[in-house]
Structures are given as C-alpha cells and as structure tokens.
C-alpha cells in the first residue's frame, strides 16, 4: 500500500524578485503539503522576509509564481489570497481598540461578524482566555503577538505564514508565543511556513527546512539534516 500523500497547498515555482538591479530572491522552488510545517532560515538579508512577502503577494514577483491549491495566485483576487495565506508579522501591529476588535477585523472585511463565542475560542487557542475586552495598549509584547496570531486565525486561513514571530520578544515571551504557535499548528493540523533565524526554533517547530543564502535556496530537506549541514 502506497503512503498517503497530502495535497499540495502551496508551490513556489522559480520565484524571484529583483528591485533596482538588486536580487532579493531568485529561482526559489518549493512545495508545501497540507499540514506540513516548513522553516525558512538563513542569515540576515538572505531573503527570508522577502519570500514571505511574495507568498502573501504584498510584493510582486519579478519572475516565477506561486500556486495555491494548484491555481496561479495571480488569478486569485488579492484579498481572498491574503485571507487564505494568513500572515503574522515580526511586530504585531495591533489596531487601536480592544483585543476583540482586532480579532473581528479580518472577517469584518468580508462583511462577517464574528460572534463572541468564536472570539473566545480563538483567544483560548493562544492561551489568552478572558482577554477579549482588554485594550491592546495594555498588552505585553508576548500577549500582543499571540493576539496577532489569533487575529490571523480568525480568517480561517489555509496556511499560516509566520515572519520571525518571536524575534522581537524577550526569552519568556518568546516561549509563550512559540508554545501557542506549536499548539495551534498541532491541534488544527495547520499548514505553516515559519521564517526564523534560530536554528533551534526551526528544529522545534518544523519537520522540513529551507535555507536561503543571497536570495537563493542553499539547502532544503528534513530539518535535522539541513540544519546540521
């Protein structure tokens, strides 16, 4: 009996971006199956964040493309694409108001009102029960980042793109956020791309890794093998 192969959610094909003759990313190819977690690592300036921005189409590729569930992402309406590929940035950038206001933001863009129970459930997933009514101005860095994760999850994304979500946090907050991410990914079987410059974090969160150097894929494969190399 052949092993079960999960469908491919995300496929980057010769993806590249050159801005004013500067190569940010070139010929990046990879596939991501449903439920898979891929860590993208590499030194500063290697193109990790650029790759995530291209996946979310916050920037336009100058070569290649991305297929989302087999469809060229240029054929998907940008707002729908960004809902499907939920992104969590390095800094949480919460909007002024309460935690619940932030959680409601994504669905509200499509005219949906998230009921209080759904908000409570999302907050419970990131370990922030009873935080719905809190003003975001009074949150710690770790709490804010967890709200940011829950806010992205409120859009029910197909895959989660995490851009160094713990790099701006202290050690304690880093562990809080990382365990929240781990729980969410494990419990929901979420497909996930996580950019991190920490090898240990990549090993803890992902099963596969892709190392970028000077905008090109240097190595890719099982996380243990790639990161030891």
């Amino acid at each position, binding site marked *: 009996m052949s092993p079960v192969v999960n469908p491919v959610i995300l496929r980057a094909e010769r993806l590249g971006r050159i801005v004013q003759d500067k190569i940010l990313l070139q010929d990046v190819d990879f596939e991501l199956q449903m439920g898979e977690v891929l860590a993208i690592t590499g030194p500063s300036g290697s193109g990790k964040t650029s790759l995530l921005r291209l996946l979310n*189409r*916050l920037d336009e590729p100058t070569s290649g493309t991305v297929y989302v569930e087999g469809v060229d992402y240029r054929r998907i309406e940008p707002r729908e694409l960004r809902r499907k590929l939920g992104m969590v*940035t390095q800094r949480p950038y919460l*909007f002024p108001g309460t935690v619940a206001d932030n959680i409601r933001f994504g669905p509200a*863009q499509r005219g949906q009102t998230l009921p209080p129970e759904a908000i409570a459930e999302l907050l419970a997933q990131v370990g922030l029960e009873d935080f719905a009514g809190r003003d975001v101005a009074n949150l710690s860095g770790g709490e804010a980042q967890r709200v940011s994760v829950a*806010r992205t999850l409120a859009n029910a994304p197909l895959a989660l793109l995490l851009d160094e979500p713990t790099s701006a946090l202290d050690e304690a907050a880093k562990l809080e956020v990382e365990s929240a991410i781990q729980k969410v990914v494990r419990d929901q079987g979420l497909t996930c791309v996580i950019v991190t410059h920490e090898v240990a974090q990549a090993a803890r969160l992902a099963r596969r890794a892709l190392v970028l150097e000077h905008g090109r894929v240097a190595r890719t494969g099982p996380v243990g093998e790639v990161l030891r190399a």
Partner: protein
Amino acid sequence: MLRLFFHSQLQLGFAQALVAALAALTVILLARRRGVHLESETMIAMVRGLVQIVAVGSILVILLRAPRWTSGFLLAGMIAAAGATSARRAKGMPDAFRVSAWAIACGAGSIIALMTALGVIDTAITSLVPVGSMLIANAMNTNSLALNRFRSDVLAHRGEIETALALGADARHSVSSYVQAAFEASLIPAIDSLRSLGIVWIPGLMAGMLLSGARPVYAAIYQFVVLAMIFAASGLTSLISTMLIRSRVFSPAEQLLLQAGR
C-alpha cells in the same frame, strides 16, 4: 530709513526686497545651526519668486490692455505651475503631478468659474487674474500639505497598513484614517485665516482696496468673500487630491507602492 537713501521707487523696491531677503536668510542660518539645511532650497525659491513676480508685474502692464479671454489661459498656466510645484512635495508618490494638477484645476478652477459666473469675481482681467491666482496659490499650498502629510503618515504606518492588507482589508480602507488626517491637517491654515481675519491680520487685498478708494466696509466684506472662496477652493482641492492619491499608492494587486527614499 531706506527712503533717505533711495529716491527712485524701483531702487527703493529692490532695497526693500534685499532687506526682507536678509531677514529670511538670517532665519535659514539659525536653522542651519540647529541642523536643518534649507539653504539651497530657500535661496532658489527666493530668487525664483522675485524674478517671477517682477516678470508678472511687467506683464500686468500689458495685460491691463489685453482682452478678457486671455485670463483663462493665464489661470490655466498658473494651475499647471502650481501642480508641478506641489508635486515636488510628494516625493515618491506615483502620479503626483497629475493628481496635483487635476485637484487644483477641479478645486480652484471650479470655484473660480462658479464665482465668476455668479458675479462674485469681476470678469475684468485686473480682477479675475489676481483673485484667481490667490485661490490657485492657496489651493496649491493646501494640496502640498495634504500630500506631504499623507506621504509621511503612510510611510510611518507602513506596518499597520500592510497588516490590514494581509488580513484581507480593501487597500483604500487600509489608508482611510491617513486620508482623513491629511485632509484635516491641510485645511488648518485656511481655517485659521478665516478665524483670525481682521483680528490677527488685515490681508493685502483689503489694504489695496482701501488705498484705491473703496469703502472700508465693502473692502472688509470682500476680504471675507475672498477668504471664503480660498477655503472652498482649498478644501475642494484637498478633498480631490487625497481621494485621487489614495488609490495611486497601491498597485492593481493592492500592494503598497510608496517606499521611503524613492
């Protein structure tokens, strides 16, 4: 004091211009000591301004005898120049000249046309061109303030805007609060001018009308009329320019195009 040394009006005028320019240069030097470098920009602006206004003054002599329709061409030329000047304040903003020129043309142009049609502005070239130029100049300043504020806000809140986009927000919605802030900020000078009219300042137009023999009450009322027209033209210009620019800072795929330092 200058009158003791200069007896011809032209010489006196240049001496007065020199003294006023020296006062401006002193401020520039003070700013330089605080690390703000405005020397070249201010010098060019002052020389340019003097040359332009002397040229216009000379042309006015000819214009006094020109047919009325020529004022239309003059005002159109002023709008184009105002658009180009204003666009320089919107560094890196896509289509800044077209946005500025259209906004000023529609904002100031429509108020000039309407007020002329209603008889608020006299059709005589000696009235239409100076009053029209006041409306265009103020619309230009308002437009510059609006674009500059919008640009600064968008660059300062790039993270928030892209977060909203990443969560599926409509591009125009993601910058709507900055559009509103830019519109409000751009109208502060026009509102303050209306508020302080007659108390803090007695504008040049009123002084000119009084000197040319108009009744003081009519001169005062007409000054209010001009400031109200300036407010209308400036407000409409800012409304149009912020509306036009907000969609131009995004690509068709709703990607934020505005980058710092471009």
